[in-house]
């Protein structure tokens, strides 16, 4: 008899204890979004939704609205969407040129606050309209998958240094380091490319690094796991170095705290060589040439950052961490006086399958 007492409790539990559901086919899962500034304090946003069709292909659907606040934007878009809009599936967010120049931390902070948004979200800036990028048609797997994979493989195997929502926020909040994001450009309605790397001062875009420099930037800021690079050895002699794995170490010189020593170690393979034959001597030559080039380019990069007053590599951070009791207020001044020394160590381990 006593146990019968539980039956009404359980019945009530099932009728009133339920939480609102979000059944996957009854919701619209936001897959990508883009924001841009219209004029002062109003911005326009586009949300991309992937409709999965019965024939396994994907249809891109976009909703666009304008608002003063990001939350308003979402509300405005909800009014257009046939099913409730959920943010949990977000993969890529693109910020328009103007907005990036003005500062994007409000948006990013909102993302951080929202527990349904994953930390591995990709953020990107756009050269030109951010909204247009989402409105293209990039193949049957859907636009957000396309953009997501585009950024992901470039980070993993190419010259794009790793960034995502977590890394952006971490860098933004690190004293003495500025964040960076990939920049996308729509070539035409069916193609998008990575057109460079946006460098930020705090949350404002100040400079776009061209793609040629991104290899060197990644050497400085991150580590390569599978990069490739071409080395010119004079007329008719070109070597391509592949499967580059790099590591870098940043130390402050012990004698002069104002000198930063960057030690870059590169390991690679030469599968392609346009000259006659690869001799150990040529390998040495290639190594030397690469070392020289890396030294030169990297130095010019860090010098450029110094001039622009941005610090995407995080020299300030290293100052803070490696000098005991460092007063970070001095950093702005110290940065201007900083000198750099770059040591590169290239090691070609393999020269392909034929001699």
């Amino acid at each position, binding site marked *: 008899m006593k146990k019968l007492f539980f039956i009404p409790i359980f019945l009530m539990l099932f009728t009133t*204890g339920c939480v609102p559901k979000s059944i*996957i086919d009854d919701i619209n899962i936001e897959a990508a979004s883009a924001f841009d500034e219209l004029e002062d304090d109003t911005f326009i946003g586009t949300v991309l939704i992937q409709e999965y*069709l019965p024939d396994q292909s994907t249809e891109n659907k976009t909703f666009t609205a304008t608002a003063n606040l990001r939350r308003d934007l979402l509300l405005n878009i909800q009014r257009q969407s046939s099913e409730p809009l*959920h943010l949990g*599936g977000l993969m890529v967010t693109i910020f328009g040129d103007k907005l990036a120049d003005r500062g994007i931390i409000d948006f990013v902070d909102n993302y951080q606050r929202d527990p349904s948004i994953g930390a591995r979200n990709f953020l990107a800036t756009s050269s030109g309209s951010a909204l247009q990028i989402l409105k293209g048609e990039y193949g049957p797997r859907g636009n957000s998958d396309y953009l997501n994979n585009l950024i992901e493989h470039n980070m993993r195997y190419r010259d794009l240094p790793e960034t995502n929502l977590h890394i952006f926020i971490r860098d933004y909040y690190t004293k003495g380091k500025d964040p960076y994001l990939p920049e996308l450009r729509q070539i035409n309605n069916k193609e998008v490319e990575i057109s460079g790397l946006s460098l930020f001062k705090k949350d404002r875009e100040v400079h776009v690094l061209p793609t040629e420099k991104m290899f060197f930037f990644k050497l400085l800021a991150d580590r390569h796991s599978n990069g490739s690079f071409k080395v010119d050895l004079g007329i008719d002699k070109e070597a391509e170095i592949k499967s580059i794995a790099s590591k870098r170490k940043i130390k402050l010189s012990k004698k002069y705290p104002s000198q930063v020593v960057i030690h870059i170690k590169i390991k690679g393979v030469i599968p392609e060589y346009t000259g006659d034959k690869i001799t150990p001597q040529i390998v040495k030559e290639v190594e030397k040439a690469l070392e020289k080039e890396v030294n030169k380019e990297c130095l010019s990069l860090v010098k450029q950052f110094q001039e622009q007053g941005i610090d995407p590599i995080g020299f300030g951070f290293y100052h803070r961490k490696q000098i005991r009791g460092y007063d970070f207020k001095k950093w702005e001044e110290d940065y201007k006086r900083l000198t750099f020394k770059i040591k590169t160590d290239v090691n070609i381990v393999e020269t392909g399958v034929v001699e």
Partner: protein
Amino acid sequence: MKRWLNKKQNETKPNKADWEKTLEKSNDFTRSNYINQKSNVHFCLTFIATLVDEQIIQQGVLPYLLEGELKTLEDIKKTVPSADVEISNDQTVIDKKILNGYIMLTIDSEPEHFAFIATQKEIVRSLSPPEIEFSVIGPKEAFVESLGQNLNLIRKRLPVKELIIEEYTLGSLSQTKVAVLYMEGITNEDNINTVKQRISEVEFDAITDSSYIVQLISDNSNSPFPQLLDTERPDRIAGILAEGKIAIVVDGSPHVLIAPTTLIEFFSSFEDYFLNWILASFFRLIRGCAVLFSLLVTPIYVAVLSYHYELIPKDLLGTLVTSRRQIPLPPILEALFLELTIELLREAGARLPTKVGQTIGIVGGIVIGTASVEAGLTSNVLLIIVALAALASFTTPVYKMGNTIRLLRFPFLIFAELWGLLGIVFAFCIMLTHLIRLTSLGRPFLEPFYPPRATDLKDAFIRLPFNKQTLRPLFLRTKNRTRYNKKKATEKKDIDE
């Protein structure tokens, strides 16, 4: 035969006992009078024709009674060449003896005494290979319905004097013989006493199978988990007796009970001991995963699709959404529908003759499955999941436990619907608590996981080689923990302690 049986049936005694009055109503109750040819003693045979073996009477009893020296009842022991001859003056045992297939012999000169001669007809099924616990390797004998034969199967595997067999008669109507088996000097006295006490306390009218005993002596009869293991393999019984457990053999049941048991035993097949330990461990792990899979996969499907779409990898999202696009039902109803369909198929298959049952399985599986997907009632992803879960549940070596697993899926489903993943963990906690609380003959059911016993873990998820298992399970609290002479083992190899 009828000739002499019906000869002088009408000669009855003047005052009949109670048992006689009742038994006379049955047509197979027989009483016939004879005269010994040497001493002219009149004697009377009373028996139940359907219970006795005519051949024994015709060849092994009657000729000696008619032609031998028969003056007093005591002479029977000399003349009749049967071991089981008993003379008694106790009126109360008469009906029991007769109903057990004895013939009663009375002589007019000794009205107060009766002789009972064993002439039971043994209708025995021949031994067949085990059907439920079939194994590719290992003995192919299974228990049958006859107690004597079952005991014989066990005895011949353990021909030592320490194997004790104690018999009880249970059931006020069925008078079922129940034998309790244990190894003296190994099995814990407490366990033996608990079993004996519980068996002797059983009050029930008709015990037709060992599963009645399971339900009557279990620690918690409200639990969906079986707490006593039943097996049809004599080799398994011999194995567990040697470990120090107790076996309960019930007459008329081809399933012998094992007590006490732990949860893990329900998921270990006896074949594990015939295989190399690496293979056996691998299969055990697979079976363990299958159980978890079978229990959790449909609830997880419901939870994820109803609440946690964020969890779905982006490559899978399209597949899932596409498969569910046309389906009008929410995931929980979809899942319940399919789970119930599978249960229907299983139930229908079990109730039908083997051949028809197979057809039902195939027809049901293929036709209903495909049709319901095409009709847009269920998604094909869920169909795969449910079918796999059902398949996984059948890997459980003990049939009863497989049923439990399938039943438990439903509360998990309901909690998954209620609170998503949180609900699944919650349901799991309830199950866990129940299992911790559960005992088998007062021994913790979850052992060796809780209470954790490292030595018993050697034969739990994995089965370590025999040379690592020199000790009997700790939870049985056996009197003698060593399985074999440690000295001999250490002479051969440098192992253990």
